[in-house]
């Protein structure tokens, strides 16, 4: 277990370094800096002297290589810089938003797993039935829905028409405010999980060891729990990991729609305010979350499938 962890961490470190470099270069090398863009979009006009001072203050006139090394050094010790807008450390801005973000992602994933996995399982066991067809039509529809539109429709129906739930905001952070955004975010991973679970179970149902188990007289319910579930689990857990990891990034639009104070809405607001350090920090956090979840999932494999023992 420890060996697997160390191995995985060694694999992840270069990826993180590459992402940090990419996030820095993306916002430094491409044409149109944020400050010059402030004038170009026509919303504001800034005195050239002020622009000059801003560039100096933010260190934008230093040579690229020097800024790059500084940025790497700072990021490595967990300093994400100072927000251009609020003049606070970006780590503090993000820390304030982290808990709402995690809450939303966990709630959405819980919803997706609780409905998607059983649905796919039953669909596979009853392959070709009406239930199977209906749930697969539902799943592909779920994958085709724009999250923000689903959210908008849920908001209209459950908040504005039926008045069962609040339409937006964080409130006390309780279940009432969490429900609609979590469903809007959770529907597409749910649909994907239903499809993956069904495919994985169907695959295992045709395996030789399942036929052997049946032919030696094992009861169907034991076959399903002992052989099918356990073997289908690897693919299901992989999908859960990939979905869960990318969910914080996918949450951007849902957070914005429901005015949920998470990292995603911080990212979008920072983009509009041209607050580069905050944008970079949010992107790094979202990528880091993805890599962290996937490392955990790799560890979970070892528990699920004893055949997997990396070196």
């Amino acid at each position, binding site marked *: 277990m420890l060996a697997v962890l160390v191995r995985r961490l060694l694999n992840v470190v270069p990826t993180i370094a590459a992402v940090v470099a990419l996030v820095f270069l993306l916002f430094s090398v491409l044409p149109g800096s944020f400050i010059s863009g402030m004038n170009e979009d026509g919303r504001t006009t800034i005195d050239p002297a002020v622009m000059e001072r801003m560039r100096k203050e933010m260190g934008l006139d230093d040579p690229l290589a020097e800024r790059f090394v500084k940025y790497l050094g700072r990021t490595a010790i967990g300093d994400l810089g100072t927000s251009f807008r609020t003049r606070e450390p970006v780590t503090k801005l993000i820390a304030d938003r982290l808990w709402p973000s995690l809450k939303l992602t966990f709630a959405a994933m819980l919803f997706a797993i609780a409905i998607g996995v059983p649905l796919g399982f039953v669909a596979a066991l009853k392959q070709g039935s009406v239930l199977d067809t209906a749930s697969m039509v539902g799943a592909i529809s779920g994958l085709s829905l724009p999250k923000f539109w689903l959210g908008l429709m849920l908001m209209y129906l459950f908040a504005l028409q039926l008045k069962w739930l609040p339409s937006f905001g964080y409130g006390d952070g309780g279940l009432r405010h969490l429900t609609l955004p979590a469903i809007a975010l959770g529907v597409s991973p749910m649909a994907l999980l239903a499809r993956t679970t069904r*495919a994985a179970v*169907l695959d295992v149902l045709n395996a030789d060891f399942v036929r052997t188990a049946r032919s030696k007289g094992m009861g169907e319910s034991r076959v399903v729990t002992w052989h099918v579930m356990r073997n289908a689990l690897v693919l299901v857990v992989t999908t859960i990991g990939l979905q869960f990891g990318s969910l914080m990034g996918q949450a951007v639009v849902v957070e914005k729609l429901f005015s949920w104070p998470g990292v995603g809405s911080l990212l979008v607001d920072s983009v509009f305010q041209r607050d580069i350090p905050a944008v970079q920090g949010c*992107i790094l956090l979202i990528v880091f979350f993805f890599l962290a979840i996937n490392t955990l999932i790799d560890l979970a494999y070892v528990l699920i499938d004893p055949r997997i023992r990396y070196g």
Partner: protein
Amino acid sequence: MKGGTSLWVGGGLVGLAVLVGVLAPWIHLTDPVLAANLMNAEIPPGREFPFGTDAQGRDIYSRIVHGARISLTVGVISQIANTLIGVTLGLTAGYWGGWWDDLVSGLTNLMLAIPSLIFALAIMAILGPGLTSLLIALGLTSWSYSCRIARAQALSLKSQGYVQAARILGYGDLRIMFTQLLPNMLGPLIVIATLGMGGAILAEATLSFLGLGIRPPYPSWGSMLSEARDQITTAPWLSVFPGLAIFFTVLGLNLLGDGLRDILDPQSVARRT
């Protein structure tokens, strides 16, 4: 759903979207951008305006019909770009191997670690809103799937007898890649590109909804929804129809991709998700 059914239903929906997009200037009722008339503001769907009008009095039906052009343009062009990048990198990496393969694999893993929507959002933030920026942002950020497939296929195909034969006949590397390997991996690549098109259309709508993609007054389905959000209490139809347009177009592409997979890529149980 049976492969045949999803192929036909998906093909039908996609065909309809393409037809509407191509014929937009002939089947629209009024100009989608210029025909604003405050006397007609927020009229519910009815005989004169089948999908109603927005706050500026523009006909929603006409705007949706034109929005199909933007969505399909973004979907098709960004997927062509992604496929070209992915196939070029994947094919050469799988065939040549060595340091080039290590480099491409590292790059692919890097791309997989950054959620493509976030990557596209970052690029839009730098380039500013607009169709060209969208095509760049979406065309450069999701090639990792086609790259992985092309690489895996090249790896398994290069030891096949007919590839060995071509090499003995003195075919150059590029000629082998294009005439021997590429035709044999087209099936899975077409499937990935079809599904990717749906993803690109969703991404365009999302970015435009956030105000980073196509800006009003141009009729992108996403930017229409972004404007509609503020009027959801007084004019809910503004939010319904553009959303349905996105949903049915993406559903069509997803069904078509599923149906094509059953025909073109029958062994891919693991990728059947």
